[in-house]
């Protein structure tokens, strides 16, 4: 882990101003920001750990707990909102048994809501493991969840 973090920091020329992008890259590498990693960044960049912690908890992009294998980011921008995204959010919460921002206990799914993906023509839209799914309906959402190996209500009845 130390080598990875060292490499990331070197890429930014050990510039303290790049703390946010550095933490983003660390998170991309490690899936989340474990305590050890934060301590390491603090030592290498010579920034107090308290300030690293402040930054890591201020920005929404960071997670201090492990994230799931699959990441579902549902857009809750205004255009998606008026096109029914809140109903989908409720549906996904029930199907996965977790609330937005949470990870399922089996570490399979992380469900988050984001503010606007800028793909408003496709609203409601959700990014699943980097892939965009547009003009979502409850039926399409069910198909996505099924593809990821999760049972949905209508499956139980069938």
């Amino acid at each position: 882990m130390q080598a990875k973090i060292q490499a990331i920091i070197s890429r930014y020329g050990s510039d303290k101003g790049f703390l946010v992008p550095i933490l983003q890259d660390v998170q991309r590498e490690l899936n989340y920001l474990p305590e050890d990693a934060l301590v390491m960044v603090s030592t290498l960049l010579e920034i107090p750990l308290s300030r690293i912690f402040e930054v890591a908890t201020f920005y929404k992009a960071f997670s201090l707990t492990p994230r799931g294998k699959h990441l579902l980011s549902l857009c809750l921008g205004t255009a998606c909102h008026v096109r029914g995204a809140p109903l989908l959010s409720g549906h996904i919460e029930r199907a996965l048994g977790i609330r937005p921002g949470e990870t399922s206990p089996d570490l399979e799914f992380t469900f988050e809501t984001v503010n606007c993906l800028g793909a408003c023509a496709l609203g409601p839209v959700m990014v699943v493991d980097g892939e965009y799914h547009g003009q979502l309906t409850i039926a399409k959402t069910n198909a996505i969840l099924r593809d990821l190996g999760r049972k949905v209500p209508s499956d139980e009845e069938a």
Partner: protein
Amino acid sequence: MKKLKSPGELAALQAEIRAGRDPKKPCITICAGTGCLAYGTQKIIECFRQEIDKQHLQDRVQLRTSGCHGFCERGPMVVIHPQKIFYQRIKAEDVPDIISKTVLAGEIIDRLSYVDPATKQKIVYEHDVPFYKRQTRYVLGMNGDIDPACIDDYLAIGGYSGLSKALSGMKPEAVIEEVKKANLRGRGGGGFPTGWKWESTRKAAGEPKYIICNADEGDPGAYMDRSLLEGNPHLVLEGMLIGAYAIGSSQGYIYVRNEYPLAVHNITLAIEKAREVGLLGENILGSGFSFDIKINRGGGAFVCGESSALFASIEGRSGEPRAKYVHATDQGLYNKPTNLNNVETWGNVPLIINRGADWYASIGTANSTGTKIFSLVGKINNTGLVEVPMGITLREIVYDIGGGIPNGRKFKAVQTGGPSGGCIPEQFLDMPVDFDELAKIGSMMGSGGMIVMDDRTCMVDVANYFLKFLEEESCGKCTPCREGVLQMRLILDRICEGQGKEEDINTLEWMGQAIIDGSLCALGGSAPNPVLTTIKYFRDEYEAHIKHKKCPAGVCKALITYSVDAEKCTGCHACARVCPTQAATGEKKKTHVVDLGKCIKCGACFEACKFDAIKIL
């Protein structure tokens, strides 16, 4: 590529690129903006490549992947040059036909042409599509001619000529004077005169001076900055270069949302290319002027679009705004003089220098010159990016360009200005859209998001939506914003739950005013706007929720019930299949029922019913 050492060498390179291109050679331009990629455009691009290889057409046909064309509703789309034949909603299977019939034989494929829903006429050419025809696309229009990864494309249409003109014949003060004369105002929301800002930064004491491009486009429903940065990154770079020269800055930053990976990728590539040819770096075009740019990715905080919070974020701290007793132009980033403009503002600068302030000022209205890009989204037929001259009416945008409201529903409002703006009702549809007019009716231009709402949108719910957004995005530093927005949201929650009290509207109004007066930054200072404008223009909806416990739009869950219209129900069982709580039940081919005791009002049955038999009461 060798480095350009003078304006003459730049002009020679531009001419050389143009001379090497045959304007009659067929070019298939495919939109590869984030929106179209989300429709699966990547696969279509691959198909085009394979088909061109298969038919050995590499020398006869060019394929160009461009940035966003703007008509997102109709993606994936291609435009075939030189005729500019427009095909929409194409699929991978259409690719062989497009090449053999249209590109090689000049035949039009009817099934791929756009049909104007209003006249039912088939439209062959891009410039005849009503959505484009009514626009004035000086800034965004270039996207279709450019592969963002190819600096030659930008140079071929005269790119970097504005920079060359400024460096070779204009003193920095003259550049500032030109921008002032053009009356360019900030496109990020505030509408502050750009030239004045540049002048203040230039005159401020302290070195180095920084310039920043604000690409932290956080307003939900606005994505023009993303599309510009993705589709025409060199235009933004050229604008920044001209600004840096005028201001006397040698270091620039681009602060871009991390949610925009393609924009980050394209602008990074563009910076590398510009360095390679000597348009960024030391002694640009032999003028003695040096400038370079760093990219900072945001961390997903809306407040970082605010200038002082943005500076804090670039400095590697949490994005908390500070009080602005001292202007950023005097003490901004690292407490040095700093000039911050948004992506679209920078994108307008090369136009002004190339074509002159008089030309620029002749577009738009007296106090809002030029064009503005809006993202027209929500309950609208033609979702997409729309560039229009300032002063155009909302009605022209919504109906002539946007094609009106889908499914024959009724227009209710347009929300502009994001979480800091307001909802504009039907009575103002004929109002000209510019900075000052929007402010007069309690909304604002913002970065240009226009979210159209119909009679199935609940205005109380929308107000509540924005408050929830702002509550989450408040940095928490000052009390009026942190606590005030929360308290207003709790009241709105109660109203949406059917627990509203008569005095609530009054309380929301005075509390909103207190937040406006007492907040530190613009985020808090404008946070109550969505609530205050909806109360002002849609008071009856608030009263229906409070007094009659009804949600007229049928949105607020606590105030609605789902039931089955026995006359319309065919007993197809679709509702029962999707119902997560087995509340919708019935025998096949017989009228179904919704058990209100079990119903959680998730809306699944309503969506599933093909016969309009699920009613919301």
